[in-house]
């Protein structure tokens, strides 16, 4: 593929518009990225894109950012990654900067205050809804260890103020340990990774 200015512009502009018009975070933007880069531009084939999405979800940080870094890297190496991350970050950066100036001017207006208070009750409900869905999924697996980890983490974070990073490091190590054990330590990983993909 010829990589002229037009190609780089297309790469930047694709991620910029996807980021600017996608409400609802990573779970919405990732399918749209797949559509744009696999179906419309035909730059990446379907299977490879699925792998990139899986990698994006395995790394820390916002999934939309991670996936766009991967697409940029795949298309044009490290410079491509910088271009796509810039494209993804700029729309929220601009929007929120503008809004935060308005916010500081309007936050003491009684009507705005009432609107926010009502919406905050709504946000709390949205988060409760998400948590119920996620916890139900873990409980439904009927495995003891994840449920125990979930309960202990909740108690540790809510009632004992244990540092979040410590909780994450311990549970991540447990995950690494169980992977090692189920794999039998022989280094054959194809079977495992395929099983996880199908979930």
């Amino acid at each position, binding site marked *: 593929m010829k990589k002229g200015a037009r190609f780089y512009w297309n790469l930047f502009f694709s991620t910029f518009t996807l980021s600017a018009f996608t*409400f*609802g*975070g*990573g*779970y919405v933007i990732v399918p749209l990225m797949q559509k744009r880069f696999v179906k419309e531009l035909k730059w990446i084939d379907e299977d490879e894109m699925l792998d990139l999405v899986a*990698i994006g*979800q*395995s*790394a*820390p*940080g*916002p999934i939309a*950012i991670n996936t766009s*870094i991967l697409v940029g*890297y795949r298309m044009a190496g*490290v410079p491509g*990654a910088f271009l796509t991350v810039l494209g993804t970050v700029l729309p929220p*950066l601009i*929007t*929120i*900067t503008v809004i*935060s*100036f308005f916010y500081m001017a309007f936050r003491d207006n009684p009507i705005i205050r*009432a*609107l*926010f*208070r009502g*919406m*905050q*009750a*709504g*946000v*709390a409900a*949205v*988060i*409760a*809804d998400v*948590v119920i869905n996620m*916890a139900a999924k*873990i409980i439904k697996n009927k495995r003891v260890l*994840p449920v125990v980890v979930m309960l202990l*983490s*909740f108690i540790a974070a*809510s009632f004992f103020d244990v540092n*979040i990073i410590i*909780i*994450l490091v*311990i*549970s*991540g*190590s447990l*995950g*690494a*340990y*169980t992977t*090692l054990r189920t*794999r039998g330590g022989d280094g054959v990983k194809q079977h*495992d*990774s395929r099983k*996880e993909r199908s979930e």
Partner: protein
Amino acid sequence: MTLLRLFWSFFLVGLFSFGGGYAALPLIQEQVIEINSWLTPTEFMDILTISQMTPGPIAINASTFVGTKVAGIPGSIAATAGCVTPSCIIVLILAALYYRFKGLSMVQGIIKGLRPAVVALIASSGMSILLTVLFANGSSALGLSNLDLAALGLFIASLFVLRKFKPDPILAMLAAGVAGVLIYGFIL
């Protein structure tokens, strides 16, 4: 100095938020409210609310908002850069490994182990958010007399509608906002 502090705090948020979406929430809360006192719990709730209605990941929105508030536009750039730097480094390493070995089962095993903890942490920060909403009269005492019954009613009604009819969350929040204007503006 402030810029460096902003960069570093959101670097930690970016580095330890596994699982996308709300996974960054407890980390942002810890950095922004508890460790650095950049926002009050109410301001944090406001940015969360704004975040739901604007495009972009919560972590990026929060870093931009906090950065702007603490140190203007340079602050928003420093915080946002901090938030995406760990992603850039780790994702590029994983991508290089992927193209070389085509297998990431260890990484996926770790992610699987993290998931229950991440859910628990989101639940824990969800609970403190709920307490902020229900006792928002400016008092930190959690006595029954400070309970905001209107907010409790709105929370229960919104949760019921979300579970039962599964509407777009933005619509549910806007409806709760309009109800809030009616209740707090005209009745109370």
